[in-house]
Structures are given as structure tokens and as C-alpha cells.
């Protein structure tokens, strides 16, 4: 089994779940995240490991990036979900993978994405009293000067 | 006039002798422990202060004397202040009937061994007071562990001493040593078992590895003496090493023939035997991991105590058979 057939199966089962398809990754619609992932985890693809969960600040939106891994087929699937800045909430994956617990807390801490349904949505690396999210591109702090991009 | 005060002067002198022996012995043992551990661990140990670091303990003592005595906020002051004394005084008192030589003993009580065993178990009170008074959760856990441990191991310890008492027919320390003149006790099989039980439970009594559960560096930081600093900490330290000396000295006089020796009975033999036992305990300490609380307790009650009781039974039977 390879990535292409995995994507094909998603398309068959969830006809309007995929928002964008590129050779490297697929972008899912926010609301179809949990059903698609549940299917990927329990189905024949056996993506039993949530290898990595992170986010990228795209200035007007935040892109949440999931790396799912299947030990059985030895394939890594990259899934993205685009969240507009006005509504940075997404369903938590903690019911599916326990690994999501800390990884989502980290994304919340550094990007400000709220994961609904997460059992323990606290900051993880920064102090609790912080209000900013350091990995956002518009992050400002006394003493921190972003280098000019060449 | 002077003759009138002489007995008191003599008494005072004896007291000073014992105290200075304890202080010097503790300092020496601390140095020895550091050297032994260094040897075990491919290190050199203290080397700077004096030849082979022999003055290191003196330097440490000076440092501890000059250190600030910090009282944790919220400590139960009276308990906290009294605890180091409760820990230090009993082992000092136990020297009262320690048979260094044929005549070299402060007072040969006719209940000598009983006296030593009972007075040293007062220590647990001090340890528990330290744990309770410090207002620190680690100390409290350490103190509670210590109380459970020392009370449990007191049983096999006394049972193994009982075998010696039965064999010697006396409670007096000198009497026990004299009873070993034909044959040192640990050479007899039933007494050898008692010796092993004694060593194990004595190691637990003085909280040394593998039974250093009340201190448990990697779990409880330093257990009951976490909050102590300066001279108060030094008192715990001195007590620890004095206790180590006492259990080894008692082992030497109960099982290894005390001051008896091949050439001429003297305090030299006694000290030599005691230090051999100490060196053995140090070797153990730097080799073994620590057992867990429940494992230690079940070992005391399920293994050591029954074996010790059986040993008492067998000894009694042997004595009766001998007539």
C-alpha cells in the first residue's frame, strides 16, 4: 500500500473531505478531521501512530500539520488543516491517540490554536500567565528582534 | 582535698575520652568511607587536604561548625531542635559497656547487651522527630519509613543476639567475650547463622545500603535530615557513623571474639575486628542498589524473623542436648 492508494480510499469514503491535494500532503477540511482520522487509524491502512503534530503560521491563517505513521505499511502520511486566524479552534485528537495530548498542548502554547475536547488544555512549555504565542510570526517581545529575511 | 574530688575527675576524664574517641572515630570513618567508595569506583577520593586527604574530615568539620543553622519556616521548633540530640546521645551512651579490652571498659553492666540494644533503638525517636519537625514532606516520608524499618529489624536483631546470650549464659559484654575463649562464636554453625542475621538487620538498623530507605537520595533527597544544616546536620552525621561503629563493635564482641586474639588480648584486636566489619559494610554499601520499602519489610517479617526464631529453637535444643 502506498500514499496514493491511501488518498484514493479517503476520496472514495469521504468524497468532500479533501480540500487540496499535492504530492507531499493532503489538506483536509476541518470538520471531517476526526472521521477521516478514525477511519485511517482503524482501517486497513493502520495508521496507529500519530508521529508528529505541529503547526505553521501562514500569517492570515494557521496550518495544523499531522504526520501519521503506519508501522504496518511503513508509510508516513502528512495531513494539513488550514485554520483562519479568526477561528483558531479544531477538534482534539486525544480520543484517538494519547500522543496528541502533549503535542496539542504544545501547539496551543506556541500558536494559540485551541483544541476542543482536549482534557487538559493548559500551556506546556511557557508559564501559565503568558498571553502571547511565541511561534506566531507577529510575536513581539522586548529584546526579541526578528532578523531581516534575505 | 584533691583526693576527695579524684573519683569525679576520673569520671569526667572517662567521659571526655569516650566523646573524643567518638568524634575522632566518626571523622576517621567518614574519611575511610570516602576512600573505600573511591577505591570501588575507580577514583582517588579526597587527595588535597593533608596526605591522601586525611585531614579532609577536619576541614569538613570546621566548615560545618561555621555554617549557618537554618530553621525551616513552619518547623515544629522544639521537636526540630531536640531531634539531633535524640539521635546523637544514645550511641554515645552505648559506649558505657563497650568491651574494648579485658579491663578497658567503662562499666561492665550485667545487662550489657540488653542495654546497648535498647539504648540505640531510642535513635528512631530522634529520626522520627526530625522527620516530623522539619515541616517537609520528604522528611516526613523518611521519618515514617525509618520508624517502620527500625522497629521491624529490631526483632531479628534481638533474636540473633538472644542466641549468643543463650550460648554464653550471660548478658554481660565481658562475660560474652570470655565465653568465646575456647572458640569464637561465629565458627559454630548456629551462631554463624545468627551472625549473618545480625549483620543484615544491623545494616537496616543504621539505614545503610541496601536498606538506606529512610534517606533514599534518589527518592527522598535526603530523607529525615533534608532540612538540617551546619552543626545539626553534623550531629546526624556523627550519629550515623557512631552507630556504624557500634554495630560493628557489637558484632566483633558477640561473634568475633571481641578483644581476644592470637597473641595478647588487647583493645587492638577489638578495634581491628570492628574495622573489618565496617570495611565489609562499606563494600556492600558501594556495590548494591536499594531495596524497596515493602520488599524490605516483607524480608524482615517473612524471612529474617522466622529464620532467627528457628535458630533460637535449634540453639536451645543443642544446649539441652549438651546438658
Amino acid at each position, binding site marked *: 500500500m502506498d500514499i496514493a492508494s491511501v488518498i484514493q480510499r479517503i476520496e472514495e469514503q469521504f468524497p468532500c473531505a479533501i480540500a487540496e491535494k499535492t504530492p*507531499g500532503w493532503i489538506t483536509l477540511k476541518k470538520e471531517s478531521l476526526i472521521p477521516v482520522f478514525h477511519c485511517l487509524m482503524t482501517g486497513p491502512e493502520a495508521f*496507529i*501512530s500519530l*508521529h*508528529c503534530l*505541529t503547526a*505553521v*503560521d501562514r500569517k492570515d491563517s494557521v496550518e495544523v*500539520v499531522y*504526520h501519521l505513521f503506519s*508501522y504496518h505499511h*511503513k508509510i*508516513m502520511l*502528512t495531513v494539513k488543516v488550514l485554520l483562519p486566524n479568526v477561528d483558531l479552534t479544531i477538534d482534539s485528537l486525544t480520543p484517538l*491517540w*494519547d*500522543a496528541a*495530548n*502533549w*503535542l496539542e498542548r*504544545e501547539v496551543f502554547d506556541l500558536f494559540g490554536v485551541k483544541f476542543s475536547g482536549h482534557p487538559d488544555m493548559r*500551556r*506546556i*512549555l*511557557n*508559564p501559565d500567565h503568558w498571553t502571547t504565542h*511565541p*511561534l506566531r510570526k507577529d*510575536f513581539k517581545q522586548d529584546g526579541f528582534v*526578528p*532578523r531581516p529575511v*534575505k | 582535698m584533691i583526693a576527695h574530688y579524684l573519683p569525679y575527675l576520673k569520671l569526667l576524664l572517662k567521659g571526655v575520652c569516650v566523646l573524643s574517641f567518638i568524634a575522632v572515630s566518626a571523622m576517621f570513618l567518614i574519611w575511610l568511607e570516602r576512600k573505600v*567508595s573511591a577505591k*570501588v*569506583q*575507580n577514583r582517588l577520593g579526597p587527595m588535597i587536604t593533608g596526605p591522601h586527604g586525611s585531614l579532609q574530615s577536619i576541614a569538613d568539620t570546621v566548615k560545618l561548625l561555621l555554617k549557618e543553622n537554618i530553621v525551616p519556616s513552619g518547623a515544629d521548633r522544639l521537636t526540630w531542635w531536640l531531634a539531633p540530640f535524640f539521635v546523637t546521645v544514645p550511641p554515645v551512651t552505648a559506649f558505657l559497656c563497650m568491651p574494648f579490652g579485658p579491663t578497658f571498659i567503662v562499666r561492665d553492666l550485667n545487662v550489657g547487651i540488653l542495654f546497648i540494644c535498647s539504648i540505640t533503638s531510642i535513635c528512631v525517636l530522634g529520626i522520627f522527630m526530625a522527620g516530623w519537625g522539619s515541616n517537609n*514532606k*520528604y522528611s516526613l*516520608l523518611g521519618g515514617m519509613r525509618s520508624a517502620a524499618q527500625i522497629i521491624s529489624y529490631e526483632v531479628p536483631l534481638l533474636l540473633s543476639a538472644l542466641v549468643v546470650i543463650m550460648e554464653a549464659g550471660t548478658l554481660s559484654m565481658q562475660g560474652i567475650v570470655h565465653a568465646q575463649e575456647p572458640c569464637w562464636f561465629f565458627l559454630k554453625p548456629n551462631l554463624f547463622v545468627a551472625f549473618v542475621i545480625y549483620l543484615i538487620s544491623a545494616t537496616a538498623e543504621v539505614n545503610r*545500603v*541496601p536498606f*538506606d*530507605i529512610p534517606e*533514599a*537520595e*534518589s*527518592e*527522598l*533527597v535526603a530523607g529525615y535530615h533534608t532540612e538540617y544544616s551546619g552543626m545539626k546536620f553534623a550531629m546526624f552525621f556523627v550519629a550515623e557513623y557512631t552507630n556504624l561503629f557500634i554495630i560493628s563493635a557489637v558484632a566483633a564482641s558477640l561473634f568475633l571474639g571481641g578483644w581476644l586474639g592470637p597473641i595478647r588480648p588487647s583493645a587492638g584486636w577489638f578495634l581491628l575486628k570492628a574495622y573489618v566489619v565496617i570495611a565489609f559494610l562499606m563494600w556492600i*554499601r*558501594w*556495590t*548494591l*542498589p*536499594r*531495596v*524497596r*520499602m*515493602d*520488599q524490605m519489610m516483607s524480608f524482615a517479617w517473612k524471612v529474617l524473623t522466622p529464620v532467627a526464631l528457628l535458630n533460637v529453637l535449634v540453639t536451645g535444643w543443642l544446649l539441652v542436648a549438651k546438658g
Partner: protein
Amino acid sequence: MMEYEELIINMGPQHPSTHGVLYLELKLDGEVVLDCRPNIGYLHRSIEKIAENRSFVQFMPFTDRLDYLASMNNNLGLCLTVEKLMNIAVSPRAQYLRVIIAELNRIASHLFAVSTFAQDLGAFATPLFYALRDREKIIQIFDHICGQRLTYNYMRVGGVSGDLPAGVDALIKEYIPYQRKMLDEFETLLTGNVIFCARSKNIGVLSKETAIKYGVTGPNLRASGYKWDLRKDEPYLVYDKFDFDIPTGENGDSWDRYIVRIREIRESLKIIEQALGGLPEGDPVAKVNKVFRPNGETYMCTENPRGELGFYIVGDGNIFPYRLKIRAPSFSNLSVLSAMVKGLNISDTVCALGSLDIVMGEIDR
């Protein structure tokens, strides 16, 4: 009427056995742990933010400071990811050198792991000193190679920063039989010890399923009985050319995690031996442009001593990465702790934590 109270104990951030600045909030009933909440972040240096303001060459030294016990492996992870992103070919000699050095560092890291684990079980300092004595040999080899003892900054995108200096291959050849002998000695101290076995067997059991659910990787996953090693299953560099086994445990308890690491040291020695024997001639020094302007993104994992270290790099055509995420193995490995220790007592919590072998540097980043 007796009052019943739970005891909350704050283990850390300064505590002898929390392996750095980890803070465990333990809720106790007597000595039994009812709940354990690890709090992290005391070593947070925002390395991911720094990465967005550094070129890859400038960022290389920061990877040393992630998992500071396995700096070479971190260097390697970043290099491989950038090479994958930029399609850079690496000379065969550099690949072999990277394998040798990564495996040496794995041994150094595992030696530290098993000995600090023994320290946590109360074998005070003796196993640690034995292991440090052997680790020192590796550090000296690294010192010869790159002039550093802890933070090496040796790997470069496209190769390594310098060839082996004269005489170092002889040092490594001497080291292999030495380490085998010393490992045997080390094992006599712990492996068969009754107390050590009683303390670690069936303590902190981590089932295969739980491990995978929590994203646990590396020796911890293998100790749970799952035979998975990126070096074997998705070989990078030239690992597919070597013959070595993947040791696995059976029960997933602390003992298995210990013995898997010990066995991995032996396997690593085997790999080094083979790699040294087949070391090709050539120039390992990178001959590529030092300025990369990656466009696009990639995610790559390598097998670190503590698990799978992943780098996720997003480039936007500038010399600084737009986003660089580090998937730290210890981060996931630590997250499983609270599930492991419920119902154990304090001593076993320390044992379970020690057997997970975490490094706070890469957890907090």
C-alpha cells in the same frame, strides 16, 4: 475519627533523580502514587523560534543542545533532513563516518542511560562511574575528531566538517574490544543482581499498544516487544549494508528497557566494527554551497538513542527556514509516564522515570 488526607508532593524541578529540571506533581496516598502530573518547560530556550532566524549552518550548534547526550545524532538528523529537502548527495566515506560516529554516540548515550537508571535504584554512583569511565574513551575520540567533548557540531550538510585525524581509527579499533570487556564487567554489577531485578522487574510496565498510542519510540518501544528500528526498517545512510540485530524486550517493564539498551550497545559495537572495516577512501568533507534556500517542506526521522528524532522543515525560498519543528523522542516518551506510574509507590516512580531515559534538553527545546 481518623482524618484521611492525600499528600501532594512536588518532585523537582530540583531533585536528584528527575534527570534535569523536570517537575512531577505527585498525589500520594501514603507512598502510593494516585496521580502523577509531569510539568515541563523549565529548560525552554525556544530553539524552534531561534531556528526561524538562523540559516542551517548557523542552526547546527543549536541541535547539539537538544539531546545533549547524543549531539552527533541530532546533528545527523538535521543534516539528513536538509539533504533530503535539497537533494544533496553525500560521499560514501562521509556516510560511513557518520554511521561510525552516530553509533559511538549511541553507545555513550546508552551507557549514561543505564548507569543513571542504576543510580535511581540506589546503586549509588558506582555503576555511574564505571560507565563514565568507558564513555570518557568515546568522548576522547570525539575530542580528537572535532575538538569538542559534549556539543560537537561535527556534521555538515553534505558531509562532515573534517576527515578522521591520523590515529583515530586505531583508537576506535582499540575501543571496541575494550568496551565489550567492560560491558561484561558492568553487567556483573547489575544484570544478575537480585535486588536490581526485584526492583526493576514488572515495574512500570508499558504495553506495546500503550506505547504506540503515546508515540513512544526507540529502546522504550522495543522493550515493549515491538521490533521496530528505523536503521533496519527504513534504512538511511548505509545502515542497510551492516549486519546487526534489533534487541527487543518481552514485558515492557523497567528491566526490559535496561537490558534492551545494554544489548543495543553490543549491536552498535558490531556496526562500528563493520563500518570501520569497510570505510571507503575519498573526501568526506562537504563540497556544497553553504547557503541553502529551501522551498517546500519535508519531514524526516532518524533513530536517536532515545527514539525517533524528527525534523519538519518548511522553507519559503529564503536562507532561514520558515518553520522548523523538532519532534523530540523524549517528549513523547515522557508523556506516557503518568499512565505508567499510577498505583506504584514513590520508589517505583523513580525507577520508571529512570528507565524511560529522558533528556530535558530536547523535551523543552
